[in-house]
């Protein structure tokens, strides 16, 4: 692993995602890494740290703060540009799709930055996948609780077995083109109304 001398700064309000990316970059040989979590005085911090590459998540309203750095300004010593390779627009599209954007100091060779951007894209995607999976697991948990409650209501009111109660819910869901959990929710709501 070749040690890389570039100074990288990560701006991400999501602590977990930032550390995933940080770890990946360290493994790839980048030693000079700064993660910024405090969003107040962001520009001052960047000016003081003088990074070569800045990575920022797109949910972050502070992206507009970075836009200021392209302007000829006494605030910034090194002019900064967004990493856009006009010849290869797919790279920037991939970055925006993944939810990350990169800014580089002027004059930095494209080849030196591309692998960093690629890594940020892949880690942001991996994180998103994780988040979707987590959401799905959470939803399944909530669904199961709803279905259990609805089954309980049906078993008590209609004196049905558990299996029977479940097939009733499932049939209603299929007939109504709904999810079983949605039917369960309406059973619960109806039961509460009729209480």
């Amino acid at each position, binding site marked *: 692993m070749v040690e890389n001398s570039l100074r990288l700064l990560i701006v991400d309000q999501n602590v977990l995602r930032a550390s995933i990316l940080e770890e990946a970059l360290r493994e790839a040989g980048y030693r000079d890494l700064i993660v910024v979590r405090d969003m*107040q*005085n962001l520009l001052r911090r960047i000016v003081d740290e003088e990074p070569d590459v800045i990575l920022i998540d797109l949910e972050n*309203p502070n992206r*507009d*703060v970075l836009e200021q750095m392209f302007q*000829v300004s006494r605030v910034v010593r090194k002019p900064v540009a967004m990493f856009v390779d006009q010849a290869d627009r797919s790279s*920037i599209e991939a970055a925006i799709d993944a939810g990350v954007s990169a800014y580089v100091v002027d004059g930095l060779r494209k080849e030196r930055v591309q692998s960093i951007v690629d890594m940020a894209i892949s880690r942001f995607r991996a994180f998103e996948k994780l988040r979707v999976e987590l959401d799905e697991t959470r939803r399944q948990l909530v669904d199961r609780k709803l279905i259990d409650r609805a089954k309980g209501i049906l078993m008590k009111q209609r004196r049905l077995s558990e299996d029977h109660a479940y097939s009733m819910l499932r049939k209603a869901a299929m007939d109504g083109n709904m999810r079983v959990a949605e039917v369960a929710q309406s059973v619960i709501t109806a039961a509460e109304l009729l209480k």
Partner: protein
Amino acid sequence: MSGAARTELKIGFMPLLDCALLVVAHEVGMARQQGLALRLLRESSWANIRDRVAIGHFDAAQMLVPMVVAENLGLGHFKTPLVAPVALGTGGNAIIVSRELWQAMQSFGACAGAEPATQARALAEVVKRRAAAGEAQLTLAMVFPFSCHNYELRDWLVSGGVDPDRDVRLVVLPPPLLVDALRGGQVDGFCVGEPWNSLAVDAGIGVIAAVCSDVWPSPPEKVLGMRAGFAAENPDVVARLVRAIHGAAMWAADASNHEDLAQLLAQPRYVGAPARLMLAVLQGAIRHESGEPALLRPDFLKLGPSAIIPRTAYAELIHARMQRWGQVTGDTSGLDRARAGFLEDGFRSVLAAAGVQAP
């Protein structure tokens, strides 16, 4: 158009009061009447809006007028030509200062509702005294380098004899950070649009030193921007969008709808600010300082039909400011490209064809 498949358009917006006409067109039905299904997508930065329009994630978006000019002059990253077939409102910006700064300005003649230049001269005195006492320069914020906020703030400072590049520190700050930054003393003033001025005044942490409609008459503010290529390939869709926004502007100009509009915008998926504050702005009742009576300023923010003309003159106004502040070089070769971004003639002919009297 009922029954026929509607054309779906993805439209980006920022949680600001002047996303109103997009929300009205979508929620009140003007878009549907034109056979359009709008998908309104909320964004968190102007940079995201610009990038997502450029790469085609959005078909169109609420944009700052100077963003369109900047992209057409090749000052952006993508250098994708943009056009604005319709505007989304004028005005709505104000210059807010912290309570401490306001108190200091008051001892040099600043008072609520005075001429902007009077306030700016009071600021100039404060700036001078701070410099003489060796105190840190004041930090003033705005929302984006290519924004009317930037140029309005600079013009206001100049009117009082303050050099925006030497006498104060100008920074970009996202509006959601405004209240904390003012309270914490990281910034001393801010040029921003609604509902942020009202929120800062209501929280008692900021005072409106000037409203920008006094600095610039009928100040350009937001347009509906899109890729020039998209507009050229879909003239019919663009015409329908223009008519839908015009319908929305007629609705929004009717005072009897202001209450409904404030309620619509107060929803978390749109602006998410208190309806009562936005209603006051829609009614033109501007409170400069918490606890003080509101002043009636019907010209502060306009969303009616006269405010949606994508005026070619905007290009000249903004281009001149960009030159003045060194964002573009001295020659005027870019001016034609900047003008081409504002489809004023197209706007007028679309409305004429629909039998609507142009505003």
